[in-house]
């Protein structure tokens, strides 16, 4: 098998020459030449292996036999059935001499695909997939992939449409390494860059692309000089059963809104619809016959792409976490997407006709196969072993002290708490905001005096919230505080301001004093405020956050707290009288 990556003009080539998953070598950008193809010429049409295997017969003996039977001498005049057979054989003679007359036979290929795994290598319960049995789990997924690959060993591609690493703690704490090792073991052919591949910064992304034994693809992300990202290719070419498949990656245009903006601020994010036509043409010039777009743009964007960009055969999608049980046909393109968290494996069987460059047949129903992980299900022992090893390391990491607290960290929903003060102070320090707000309900457990483990912080902050920075006016800040007082059981934890409530007054009029730093809140002033994404979306009915301007998504709330504890221990937060209640 030969795998070729790249774009010679614009792509910085991989400097290393690694082994491919099939024992070949990464040869850098080149053409997807057919063995019998001459440079500059189109690849010859494919002939099915079964036809090839019979060619000596058809090439030598059949013509002679066919000629004898089809154009018999007088002695054989009466044998009409035999004569018919002769005509058939003679036809084969013509076809074998002029294969272009009838065209090549369609070739059966299989595209296996996953997307948005988000580090879920351990099984979990999801009743919408199966009432009793656990779903997902990389060991079961691996067994399924191997089983599906065995159905079409020479004609299968294994692809990922992005967002593979960030999410589940067992992957997150190791910056995606468990997932990457499993993908290498499973011999993934290519993966497109999702937005969450940027969450840990470009250095970590570089480590992942370097360690991968498959190419990361994205054709619409470039630096300011117009170069593709280091270690990332726009497309890759694969030959399976003599068919050259071009796989081009595209990443969501909303990347800057979907990861920490500073991690992508030097990138130009082009419209995939504008980029794809030239890349598709380039792949075709290099011999690609079957054109696949590996998209991390979401189903709606993929449907638009299928309409706007002609010539795509298949879009393997991700990002919208859509469970698409059967392929969608939009225009001439097939669109597939395999849900999320590894609950499904996409299995697209298709029959590609190289003579017409069309997909002649494809899986119409049941393209998504649920990944079930019950004890009786097959599991890849090697992957299971890799996971066990990471579980052991994960347990050790979780139970290891990363810092210590000199006081109990106690949460409160109805009053100021020292844990709330700590979290909001960290939020403000991490972002440079003037004011921080955190919902008390977002802190779920206390942490007692002594060593602090990673596991304790995951338990205390179990939600995968991220920080959101925004501009709010003083009037909007006041409105939030009034909403906080009206809810009563869900007082907002704050940093950067002090507030005095009088709960004996009617709702909407309970805030009697607010100081920002040392100065009174000014209703017309604009303040830079940080909160979490739950509140920013208007969660717990804090609707004033939805009026924010200059909004920026930032890093994980839990991660900044973990970093703070690791760097600043021992910590000893105390309540400072930021939230007080006026008593009658």
């Amino acid at each position, binding site marked *: 098998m030969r795998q070729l990556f790249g774009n010679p003009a614009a792509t910085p080539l991989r400097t290393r020459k690694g082994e491919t998953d099939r024992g070949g070598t990464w040869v850098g950008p080149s053409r997807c030449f057919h063995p019998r193809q001459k440079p500059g010429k189109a690849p010859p049409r494919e002939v099915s292996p079964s036809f090839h295997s019979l060619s000596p017969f058809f090439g030598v003996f059949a013509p002679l036999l066919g000629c004898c039977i089809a154009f018999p001498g007088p002695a054989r005049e009466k044998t009409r059935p035999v004569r018919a057979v002769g005509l058939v054989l003679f036809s084969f003679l013509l076809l074998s001499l002029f294969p272009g007359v009838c065209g090549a036979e369609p070739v059966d290929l299989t595209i296996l695909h996953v997307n948005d795994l988000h580090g879920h290598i351990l099984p979990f319960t999801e*009743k919408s997939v199966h*009432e009793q049995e656990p779903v997902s789990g990389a060991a079961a997924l691996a067994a399924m992939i191997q089983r599906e690959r065995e159905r079409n060993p020479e004609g299968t591609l294994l692809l990922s449409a992005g967002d593979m690493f960030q999410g589940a703690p067992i992957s997150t704490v190791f910056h995606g390494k468990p997932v990457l090792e499993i993908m290498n073991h499973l011999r993934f052919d290519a993966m497109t860059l999702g937005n969450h591949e940027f969450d840990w910064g470009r250095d970590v992304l570089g480590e992942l692309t370097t360690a991968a034994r498959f190419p990361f693809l994205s054709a619409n992300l470039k630096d300011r000089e117009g170069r593709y990202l280091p270690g990332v290719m726009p497309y890759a070419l694969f030959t399976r059963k003599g068919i050259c498949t071009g796989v081009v990656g595209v990443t969501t245009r909303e990347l800057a*809104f979907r990861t920490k903006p500073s991690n992508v601020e030097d990138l130009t994010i082009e419209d995939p619809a504008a980029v794809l036509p030239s890349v598709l043409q380039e792949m075709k010039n290099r011999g690609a016959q079957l054109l696949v777009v590996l998209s991390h743009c979401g189903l709606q964007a993929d449907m638009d792409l299928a309409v706007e960009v002609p010539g795509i055969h298949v879009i393997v999608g991700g990002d919208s976490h*859509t469970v698409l049980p059967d392929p969608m046909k939009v225009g001439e393109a097939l669109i597939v997407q395999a849900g*999320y968290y590894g609950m499904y494996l996409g299995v697209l069987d298709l029959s590609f006709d190289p003579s017409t460059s069309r997909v002649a047949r494809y899986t119409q129903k049941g393209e998504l196969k649920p990944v079930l992980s019950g004890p009786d299900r097959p599991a890849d022992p090697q992957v299971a072993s890799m996971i066990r090893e990471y579980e052991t390391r994960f347990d050790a990491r979780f139970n290891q002290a990363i810092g210590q607290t000199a006081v109990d960290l106690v949460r409160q929903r109805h009053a100021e708490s020292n844990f709330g003060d700590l979290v909001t102070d960290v939020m403000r320090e991490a972002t440079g905001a003037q004011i921080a707000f955190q919902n008390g309900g977002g802190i779920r457990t206390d942490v007692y005096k002594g060593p602090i483990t990673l596991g304790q912080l995951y338990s205390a902050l179990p939600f995968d919230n991220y920080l959101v920075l925004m501009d709010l006016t003083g009037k909007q800040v006041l409105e939030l505080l009034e909403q906080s007082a009206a809810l009563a059981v869900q007082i907002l934890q704050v940093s950067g301001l002090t507030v005095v409530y009088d709960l004996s007054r009617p709702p909407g009029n309970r805030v009697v004093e607010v100081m920002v730093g040392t100065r009174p809140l000014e209703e017309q002033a604009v303040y830079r405020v940080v909160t979490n994404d739950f509140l920013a979306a208007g969660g717990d009915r804090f609707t004033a956050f939805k009026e924010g301007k200059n909004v920026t998504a930032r890093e994980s709330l839990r991660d900044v707290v973990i970093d703070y504890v690791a760097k600043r221990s021992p910590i000893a937060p105390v309540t400072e009288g930021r939230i007080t209640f006026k008593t009658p």
Partner: protein
Amino acid sequence: MKETIRVFVDDTPVSLFRGMTVKHALMSRDPSLYRAAMNGEILVTDELGHRMGLEGSLLEGARLHTRRAGPVSSD
């Protein structure tokens, strides 16, 4: 690019910051919907009836629908 998008949850418009996901649309529409989805009591589908995960991305004009989770066939 505007920093907010408008999507619909069960035909009710909600405004979200760009980059927010299905779960944020539910939080914004009605926090109880989000809790129900987290507990597996309801499922979210797109306008074509395809199920979406709570972390699924949204574009301007997306139309989400919620429905009570029903039993699934075994295997």
